[in-house]
């Protein structure tokens, strides 16, 4: 399975976590692919931390330089949506108004610690809104490929990368499996089609229960 396929498989599975009437925030990377797989019969409002509630799809033409998502790509506004400033946007996030926050991750620990903002000396994206999304969302789901390109596991006993937020991740969806973190313990919920328990055990950097 190439990386592109893996990302699509993860996004497709993540879409099933979203149900009718939810308020959802999607991070950049794999989470941005999730809307492509949503059940078209449900109504969802996407929140973007640059000041939109009710974000709609990429416009086919006539992009507006003053209307983008948090990653800087052009979007539209759904009926009933609203624009607001950054303090209001993060007020909603910290206050717990987001039903599901779906973030990309670099590492997640067995107890739900999230590392997704910096690889010292290599990538310096900065933390953006991830700390507050991790703090405030009712449900925090992380999406990532199960391992690094070199095979290193990303689900680990203790994160080696700088932490974004401790004890925040509730669910991990990878191209191999779906895990929950309950009471600080990692539980395997599902194997993705074509995966075996042995493979997941081998490629996961920590123990888990079922």
């Amino acid at each position, binding site marked *: 399975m190439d990386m592109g396929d893996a990302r699509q498989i993860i996004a497709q599975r993540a879409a099933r976590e979203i149900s*009718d*009437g939810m*308020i959802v925030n999607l991070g950049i990377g794999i989470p941005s692919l999730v809307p492509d797989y949503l059940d078209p019969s449900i*109504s969802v*409002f996407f*929140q973007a931390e640059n000041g939109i*509630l*009710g974000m709609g799809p990429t416009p086919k033409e006539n992009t507006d330089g003053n209307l983008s998502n948090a990653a800087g790509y052009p979007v539209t*506004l759904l*009926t*009933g*949506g*609203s*624009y*607001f400033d950054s*303090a*209001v946007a*993060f*007020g*909603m*996030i*910290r*206050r*717990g*108004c987001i039903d599901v926050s779906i973030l990309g991750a670099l590492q997640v620990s067995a107890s739900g610690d999230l590392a997704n903002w910096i690889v010292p000396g290599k990538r310096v994206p900065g933390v953006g809104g991830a700390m507050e999304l991790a*703090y*405030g969302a009712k449900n925090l789901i992380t999406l990532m490929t199960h391992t690094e390109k070199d095979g290193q596991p990303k689900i680990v006993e203790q994160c080696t990368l700088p932490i974004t937020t401790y004890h925040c991740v509730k669910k991990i969806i990878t191209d191999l499996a779906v895990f929950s973190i309950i009471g600080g313990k990692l539980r395997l919920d599902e194997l993705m089609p074509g995966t075996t328990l042995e493979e997941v055990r081998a490629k996961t950097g920590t123990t888990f229960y079922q």
Partner: protein
Amino acid sequence: MPLFNKVTTYETIRPLFFDGMTLLFGGFGGVGSPPGLVDCLIESGVKEVNLVGNDAGFPWIGMGKFICLERAKTLIASHIGSNPVAGELMNQGKLKVEFSPQGILVERIRSGGVGLNGFLTEIGMGTKLEYNKPRVTIDGKEYMYEAPITGDVSIVYARKADTFGNLVFDKTARNTNPYVAMAGKITVVEADEIVEMGSLNPEEIIVPGIYVKYIVPSEGYNWKWIWEMPDKLSRNAPPAK
């Protein structure tokens, strides 16, 4: 988008109120307090309520009507001068009043509403309004800590609400309402006009509907300006409604 329809009746709202609850209310001198929801609160029969709002209204306007019934246990407000009944109850020990500077009070409500853990200020330090608030020293300078406020239920008045709860307000009836709307575990809006989603200009929405749980239609208020009252500040002033 049927799931985003939050319009309901006062009958649905009444059971949300309970004895001993913390209730946040919008309004400034009664202007911008939701008249129908205050009546609904009165009809619910609840008592020992902990109130948080800008002021005690007038005896016949805003939350003043409820306070006069002696069913509020505590009140955090910036002043109660327009409601002499509140002053009497305070002096009789029947209502415990905590005074807060007006802008500090709305910031405390905002702090709770935006999920922060309170703030520091110099305002009120060394005065009676300090109560027992903690002092914090930062870089050798001392400040007073003001704690965030949240409530079990918030009641809010809006000029217009769409069915999702996006709100716009009317002139000075806006006042504390946007922050009260953010700070309630359950926020109920009384709106003069309820419109379809898409009817409000998305740039002009003051409170996004994400904060609103229920919307009820307003039947309007019917109070008089203070100088139109026969016996201005008496508890016996005829309630207009």
